[in-house]
């Protein structure tokens, strides 16, 4: 995606010509049209058929819209609820009330920083135990007042650090998961950028998981997988492909429910359009889920997650060639 800058430059040039066209009264419209055609062609060439590693880079693109951007457009009147009531308030995992098409919902939102300052505050979008405890509190609020729950996922993963381990970050993820498993309201998770490991899943155990077209969701970062499995950090590209972390692949694997299309080049190329598409999708999904009574909702959620896994019955050859009688034991 190093050609991205060339495209940006071309785009800027066209804009300059357009202004010239307007101000000086010189008719450049034909030239502009031709240039735009060219631009569109180059864009397609660059952004269509992205490979998985390019998707990863797009999912992490510094201009990519973050949760707060969607909170201001997809939702109305975000009313933030802060703090875990225990040790602090995490700025990488936000919680609050908001309205979606006029209807009150509880929102969980992972938030990266744009500036260095902001990233310091938000730990580069990596939630700490304070954040997962806050999530659990917000899930309980949703349950108590029967507010639907919408999660926006965008994190490299839970923050790895001494303080996080001291505060039992693993257990806070487990408890957030357990709260999501039992909340008696419709739940929708949207992966808007990076869905990084347990820290992302903690708020992702939902009745419906949708991903933006260029978002990723993975058990580990490609870099992490490369370093552990290939023993070579530079194999991140290979790892990205092997992990099947794109929206398209995860939909094909049956692990997510839908994909929200993005403009060519990514959500940041036309944020309004992306937000509109996302809103339409969430509203539609929520209206479907809202039609179900709570017990059916919970039964479906149970069946969904109980059923995740791929395996076959296959007796293993062992040195002493045991009879394949294992399955009988369960009957």
């Amino acid at each position, binding site marked *: 995606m190093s050609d991205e800058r060339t495209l940006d430059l071309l785009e800027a040039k066209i804009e300059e010509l357009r202004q010239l066209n307007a101000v000086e009264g010189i008719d450049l419209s034909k030239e502009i049209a031709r240039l735009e055609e060219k631009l569109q062609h180059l864009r397609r060439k660059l952004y269509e058929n992205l490979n998985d590693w390019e998707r990863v880079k797009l999912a992490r693109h510094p201009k990519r819209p973050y949760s707060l951007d969607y909170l201001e457009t997809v939702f109305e009147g975000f009313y933030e609820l802060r703090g875990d009531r225990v040790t602090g308030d995490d700025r990488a995992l936000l919680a609050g009330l908001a309205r979606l098409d006029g209807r009150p919902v509880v929102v969980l939102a992972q938030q990266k920083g744009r500036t260095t300052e902001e990233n310091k505050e938000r730990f580069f979008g990596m939630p700490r135990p304070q954040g997962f405890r806050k999530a659990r509190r917000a899930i309980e609020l949703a349950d108590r007042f029967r507010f639907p729950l919408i999660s926006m996922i965008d994190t490299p993963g839970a923050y790895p650090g*001494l303080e996080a381990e001291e505060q*039992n970050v693993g257990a806070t993820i*487990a408890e957030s998961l357990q709260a999501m498993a039992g909340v008696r309201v419709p739940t929708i998770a949207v992966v808007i950028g990076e869905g990084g490991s347990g820290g992302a899943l903690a708020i992702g155990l939902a009745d419906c998981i949708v991903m933006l077209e260029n978002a990723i*969701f993975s058990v580990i970062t490609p870099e992490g997988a490369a370093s552990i499995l290939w023993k070579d950090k530079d194999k991140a590209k290979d790892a990205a492909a092997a992990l099947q972390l794109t929206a398209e692949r995860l939909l094909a694997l049956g692990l997510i429910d839908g994909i929200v299309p993005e403009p060519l080049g990514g959500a940041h190329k036309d944020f309004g359009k992306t937000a509109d598409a996302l809103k339409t999708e969430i509203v539609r999904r929520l209206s479907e889920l809202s039609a179900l009574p709570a017990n059916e909702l919970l039964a479906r959620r149970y069946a969904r997650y*109980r059923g995740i*896994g791929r395996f076959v019955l*296959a007796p293993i050859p062992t040195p002493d060639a045991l009879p394949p009688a294992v399955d009988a034991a369960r009957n």
Partner: protein
Amino acid sequence: MSLFKERQYLRIRVDREADDSLWMKCKACGELVFKRRVRENNNVCPSCGEYFFLTAAERIDSLVDPGSFEDLTERIVTDDPLAFVDSQPYRERLREAQEKTSLSDAIVIGRGTIEGVPLILGVMDFRFIGGSMGSVMGEHICRAMEAAMAERRAFVLVSSSGGARIQEGMFSLLQMAKTVTVRRRLAEAGLPFVSVMTYPTSGGVQASIASLGDILIAEKGALIGFAGRRVIQQTIAQELPAHFQTETFALERGQIDRVVRREDLRAELALALGFFAGVR
């Protein structure tokens, strides 16, 4: 069924006979120790007290009443949904682990009794790709809890896992969601779950099922944590205390109920489960 029980013990025997030397050198104290004495001593070094890994079968042997264990580990194997290949194809890695351990994956589940108290037991085996949790382990943990519910027994899980099975991608990550979902139903059914954490209980296993026991017991020498020491140091270059993520660290920080020596674990479980004998 009796054939089945026999097979379980056969499996253990096979594994043990695979070692062909009589002596081993302890990594901790450097002493040359007689292998059989180590085994008879719960894989604890007779010279310095260092704990060596227990295979799932050895762990089960060390806990349940003799002859009481019935293996429920159906021989399912992952179908490798990502057709994953890193430095080696996942299928090959799996076959090697299966051959080394005579297990189909990194966990054994079954029913048994401990000092007469009935339970469903799940035990991870670290030798099998680091005890990592993929579809098969997640499935077995859920089946174990379902057996506990069907038979109104307590559930005990002995964890020894580095975390997720990377080679199964999102299928692996989602086992966290899967096991937690079923664990919630176990709680609703009013059945007790004792989680035993050994070396290591980390990553996705620690961040899901292992942390959700009604009682959390750490074996002495355990490692308990989410992110590994190396990951933390690589990511944020932070100084970590010497006892970071040890059972002492966890106990001091309120993360576990109790620390138990390996040789006392059996009695400990009998004690703990005894309190719940009447609730079913």
